[in-house]
């Protein structure tokens, strides 16, 4: 892989281990994996069978969330993608959105077959959601999301608690 311990800054320093459960092909690889998150070269090039397995497991779980709860399940998938490919944010977002799109289409078809869809709302949400999605993707990277994230997270926590308790 062309990655050695010399590529890691301060290798004697104790960094937070990422996943100490990889099945390494050699001892050096194991050591390097423990330093993941420190060395950019390691972040982008290391790939193990276990990381693929974790990602596929996350995609199954995301799909199941989408099928059962009717939400995208994208948050879980994006979290996993960011965890395994921290330097590829644009690709992670794109993959996540594409997955959510297909999962949503599939679930919509299954809900229709199962009789959960009442047919109301398509006309009402078609245009605003198409327009809003396009506007949002145009604004991506142009506005500061920290405040928006703060408001959204507090709203989600409140809503989650009220749904569980109420």
């Amino acid at each position, binding site marked *: 892989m062309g990655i050695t311990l010399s590529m890691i800054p301060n290798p004697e320093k104790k960094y937070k281990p990422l996943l100490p459960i990889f099945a390494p092909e050699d001892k050096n690889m194991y050591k390097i994996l423990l330093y993941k998150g420190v060395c950019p070269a390691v972040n982008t090039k290391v790939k193990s069978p276990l990381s693929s397995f974790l990602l*596929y497991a996350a995609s199954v779980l995301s799909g199941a969330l989408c099928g059962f709860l009717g*939400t*995208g399940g994208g948050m879980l998938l994006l979290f996993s993608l960011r965890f395994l490919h921290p330097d590829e944010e644009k690709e992670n977002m794109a993959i996540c959105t594409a997955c959510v799109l297909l999962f949503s289409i599939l*679930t919509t078809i299954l809900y229709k077959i199962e009789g*959960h869809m009442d047919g109301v709302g398509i006309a009402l949400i078609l245009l*605003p959601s198409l*327009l809003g999605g*396009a506007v949002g993707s145009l604004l991506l990277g142009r506005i500061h999301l920290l405040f928006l994230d703060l408001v959204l997270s507090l709203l989600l926590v409140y809503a989650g608690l009220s749904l569980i308790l109420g």
Partner: protein
Amino acid sequence: MMAVITFLCAVLCGLGVGSGGLFLLYLLRALSMPQYAAQGTNLLFFCFATLASTLTSLRAGRLPLGRLLPLLLFGSLGVLGGALLTLVLPAQTARAGFGAFMLLGGLYTLFGRVLAPLLARKRKKE
């Protein structure tokens, strides 16, 4: 009113903020829709809202198909399992599950996307 809320939630969705839960909450609370019907409408919203950004990513060449296809395949299996659960489990279970999902999502956003960057910025200044 619904058109405005839908538009705003779709903008957030396009920004990658994760607003599908909010739209579902609006359908459940403000419109008092039944759980699974609201979920179905929310899915339609997702289909339309994510279509534009997926097409944009595809045109920009940001979709690595080699990584995407296995995820779609495995995720589709999950979708099938999840949709079958809606036939077996009562709507209240889905409602509680959705609440827990929102709570976790909110906490993750609060700690992972708001507090962690703020702390990192503070450390950098020091």
